[in-house]
Every structure is written in structure tokens, then in C-alpha cells.
């Protein structure tokens, strides 16, 4: 199935509604990670609506593109986009983290078709994505692999083992997106364990790199287009705001992993819809 085309204006409306759903589903769950979900939702929305080849009616379609959400705690954003793309009804978003729900606290491929790999233990997703990209190359397939990493996740050693290996295997079909929101559980990434200069680090590891504003749809689209043309593995460092769209959550570390209470969720939703 070709990717749906959505105009920039529509994306703004669409991602507003997606943000509302993220807030509501985490509120209903009573736990979860709003900050990193709100920072990555714009990129996911552009990726799924404008670039990704997939078929919700046939999630295991062989020639689909693969998405690995290595920062698995941001799954409320992924689930929301998947619901809008038709993988499951939107109402199901409210079952997040409940017994029997396919919407597990971190993505679980056993329960939700369309999840390519179960993730959540940070640092592991990129290696899996590289394996997938190598498999596509071995079989001369043109489907692509996208892997979304958190910036705090870059502190994991396995990520650097993986980053070192992708250029060796020449996997041009691989795109990494770093959600660079500078927040992690214990504080700002720049204080907990600085990763800068991440663009230079990735370049020196042999990747093509684009640094963008991860909330600017045109920039996201431009970078994803460049990635598609690249013969080398391509990394997009998306500068984002943790909790983007809700003023009292933005850049507040506490909202990395806590659910809004009803009154907070109502305020957040009102603000998102106004904005």
C-alpha cells in the first residue's frame, strides 16, 4: 500500500488529535511515559503518513517497511499513529497497559501485529534493525528499516557497537531517528551523561547525518526524503522538546514517566486543542 498523502496543514490537525489521544490513554492507564511520546509523535506521524509502506490489513506483508521503536517506552505515540493508520480501532487506545490488551507497557510483538520487535530494554533496537536491513540487502529487497532511538539511550554501549557496524554492512536502507529531547528519568541527558556532540559522533562513525527540528514537518519530511536517497546508513538527529505541546510538561523531567491525573489531563487537552 502506498503511503497516504497528508498536507502539512492536515498534519498539524492530525498531530494535535494524536497528542490528545496520547494524554488520554496514559491518563486512563494510570502510568506511562508522556514526555518522550509527545516529543516523537510529529516524526512518527510524518513517517507513517508520507513515507512508510505498510498494509494494516496484512501487517506481515513481506515487502513492508520495518519500524523498530527502540525507545519502547514511547509506545503511546506509536500505538496512536498505528490506530490512525488503521491497525486497530482508536477506542482500543484506552486499554493501554490493561490486562489482556495488545497495547503493552512497552511494545510486544506477540500481542500486537504491526510491532516488528519487542523492545523496551534500551540499547537493543538498533542491532535488530541492522539485522533486518542486512536481510533486505541479502535478498535484494527494497523495503526500508527505520529505528527510533532516544538520546538517553545512546548511553548504552550496545548502541555504539551497532552504530559502528552499520556502515561496514553498507545498509543504505536503514534510517535511524534520534529523538533528541535532552531528558531522561534522572535528569537532563546533558547532565546525567552527556552525549554531545552527537552529530559529529555519528558522522565520524560513517553515517550520513541530518540535524533537524523534530517538530517542523517540512524539516522532518526533508530529512526522511534525504535518508531514502542515501546509499549509506542515515541518521536524523531530531532536536525535540520533551512533553511538546503541553506547556506544564515541556522540558519537565517529572513528566518522563508519570501519568496525568484527570484535572491535569483536562488542562493538557484543552491547551493542545487551543494551540
Amino acid at each position: 500500500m502506498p503511503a497516504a498523502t497528508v498536507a502539512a496543514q492536515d498534519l498539524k490537525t492530525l498531530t494535535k488529535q494524536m497528542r490528545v489521544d496520547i494524554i488520554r490513554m496514559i491518563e486512563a492507564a494510570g502510568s506511562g511515559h508522556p514526555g518522550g511520546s509527545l516529543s516523537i509523535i510529529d516524526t512518527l506521524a510524518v513517517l507513517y503518513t508520507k513515507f512508510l509502506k505498510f498494509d494494516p490489513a496484512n501487517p506481515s506483508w513481506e515487502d513492508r517497511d520495518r519500524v523498530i521503536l527502540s525507545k519502547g517506552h514511547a509506545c503511546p505515540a506509536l500505538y496512536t499513529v498505528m490506530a490512525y493508520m488503521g491497525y486497530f480501532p482508536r477506542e482500543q487506545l484506552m486499554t493501554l497497559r490493561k490486562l489482556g490488551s495488545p497495547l503493552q507497557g512497552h511494545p510486544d510483538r506477540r500481542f500486537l501485529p504491526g510491532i516488528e520487535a519487542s523492545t523496551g530494554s534500551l540499547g537493543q533496537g538498533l542491532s535488530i534493525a541492522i539485522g533486518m536491513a542486512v536481510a533486505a540487502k541479502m535478498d535484494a529487497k527494497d523495503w526500508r528499516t527505520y529505528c527510533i532511538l532516544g538520546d538517553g539511550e545512546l548511553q548504552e554501549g550496545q548502541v555504539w557497537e551497532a552504530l559502528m557496524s552499520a556502515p561496514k554492512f553498507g545498509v543504505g536502507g536503514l534510517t535511524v531517528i534520534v529523538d533528541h529531547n535532552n531528558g531522561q528519568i534522572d535528569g537532563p541527558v546533558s547532565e546525567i551523561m552527556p552525549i554531545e556532540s552527537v552529530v559529529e559522533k555519528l558522522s565520524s562513525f560513517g553515517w550520513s547525518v541530518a540535524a533537524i527540528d523534530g517538530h517542523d514537518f517540512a524539516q522532518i519530511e526533508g530529512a526522511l526524503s534525504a535518508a531514502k536517497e542515501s546509499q549509506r546508513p542515515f541518521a536524523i538527529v531530531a532536536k525535540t522538546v520533551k512533553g511538546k505541546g503541553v506547556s506544564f510538561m515541556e522540558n519537565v523531567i517529572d513528566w518522563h514517566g508519570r501519568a496525568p491525573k484527570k484535572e491535569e489531563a483536562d488542562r493538557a487537552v484543552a491547551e493542545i486543542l487551543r494551540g
Partner: protein
Amino acid sequence: MGKATREAFGEALLELAEAHPELVVLDADLSKSTMTQAFAKKYPKRHLELGIAEQNMIGVAAGLALCGKTPVLTSFACFLIGRLETIRVSAAYNDTNVKLVGTHAGLGIGEDGTSQMGLEDVGAMRSLPHMTILQPADAAETRQAVEWMLAHKGPVYLRLTRQKMDDVHGPDYKFKLGRADVIWEPSPKPKSFQATVFASGGPVPCAVAAAKDLLPRGFNVRVVNAGTLLPFDDDAVARFAADSARLVTVEDHNVTGGLGSAVCEAAAQRGLGVRVVRLGARDFGESATPSQLYDKYGLSAPHVAEACLRNLD
């Protein structure tokens, strides 16, 4: 003396490569030791060298498996188990078709010493859902275990020796998953036994030597090769406990978590009330020849014989 099981593994990969076009082999700078070099040379497009980066190797293998490949990755047993959490999440929890091959198991690596000895790997692997654990005793069993492993869908851990192993199976040997085979017993078969020894991997020849030594001394001992450690042949434990005064286990692994634990668990769960004497490492190892270490750490034939006759605790 026959081949090391790692050698038989390397030959089996080559033999089976054409029949398994989806087979891909991954290495982390130990292919000379894990015996995958011949495969890499003959099938360079189906071989990935990851360098000294086992976690990435495991994850890349998981990704390949999720796209229909049959990845076989190799390293020393100790270096694989050091990446347990990656094995747990990327390979096992994702229910992938990754085959993990850990060579140079246990004290049998010898002079390289403790940091290179996989002595806790089976214990950790045995606690992972979806995992299968194979430890063949000789070349014939290894060849068939590899064939089974490549045909099986799901994660498998294959544990192999650095040291050469005696051929313990006859020409009619047929590998069967989850079956502990009798590889030696007095003929004609006695009505009852002083002991049944469950052995796996490196010390299997020690168990056979002990049983042969005890026969002229008037003790009937049966030797069972536990080539599959998970799922374990609990029925065999019950069957042999019924005609044996005791069970002995011997493995080149810590006594906790491996073969000894598996036999004790089966005996306790079935309420068999049989004494189980466990031989295996109870500490870290050290540098020496494998046979010196098997002597010092209680795995050699005289130790097995002694365990058949008296309690060691």
C-alpha cells in the same frame, strides 16, 4: 580420541549449508576458534563478522531471524552468557529463530583460565522461556544436533567443547530432542544398579571410564548422556531412579543451574526419594590442562567412580 564437538559443528555447517539457504553465520572475532572459518570462506555472502561486539551480534541475528533468515552466531560460552539480557530480550522474548553456539565450555578450555570459562551459562539459559539447550557428546551427535537445530523454529543454545571427545555413539545413533540416552551399561543388563550417572558434554568420557572401572570391582553402573538439557528428560530420571541405588550427575559447569539441578528438580518433582550426587564446578576455575582441571575440580573418572560409591557431602 574423536573430534572436539566444535570441530564437528564447523563441518556440519558446511555440509548443511546448501540444504539451508536461509542459514547465515555470525561471528565476533572468534571464528578460528569456533570453527566457522570454512563456512565463512565458502559462503562469504552468508557470513557476517561483527568484531568484538557480542551484544550487537545477538541483536543483528535477531533482526535477521525476524526477516526469515536462520542465523547461527558463535562465541565462547562465557562471552555469550555475559550478554544474557540481550539474549533474553532480543532473541528469546522476541521468539526468534536465533541459534546461539557457545564453544570452549567450562574448565575444558584449560590454560586460558577462568575469564574464558563458561561455567554458569546453562543455568542462565535454562531459565529463559522458548529456549532449547543442546550439549552433544561426540561428533555424530553434534552433526545431528546441528541438523535438528537448523530445522527447528525457535532459539537454541548449542554448547560445545574445545577439547577432543571420544565417540560414544554407535553407527545407528539417531538424535532425538529431549532424550537422555544410555551410552554404556554392563552386559548382560543387570536387574539393579549401584548408580546411574547422568553426564553431559566434556566429562561424558570420564563417566564411561568410571563405569568400566567399577564393573570388575563388582559395581554395576549405567551411564546416560544428557544431550538435551532443555527440555530435560524427566522421565529418564524416574526410570533410572527406579533401578539405581543413587544418581550421579557430572558436568563441566557449576553444579547450580545445569545438569545437576535439572536431575534434582525432576527427582524432587516426581517425589522419587533418590539420592543425587552432583559433580561439577563449585567455584571459579584456574589455568592448567583440561585433564588436570577435571582432576582438581572433581570431574575425572576416579571422582565419578567415588561418587557412585559414597556420598560426597
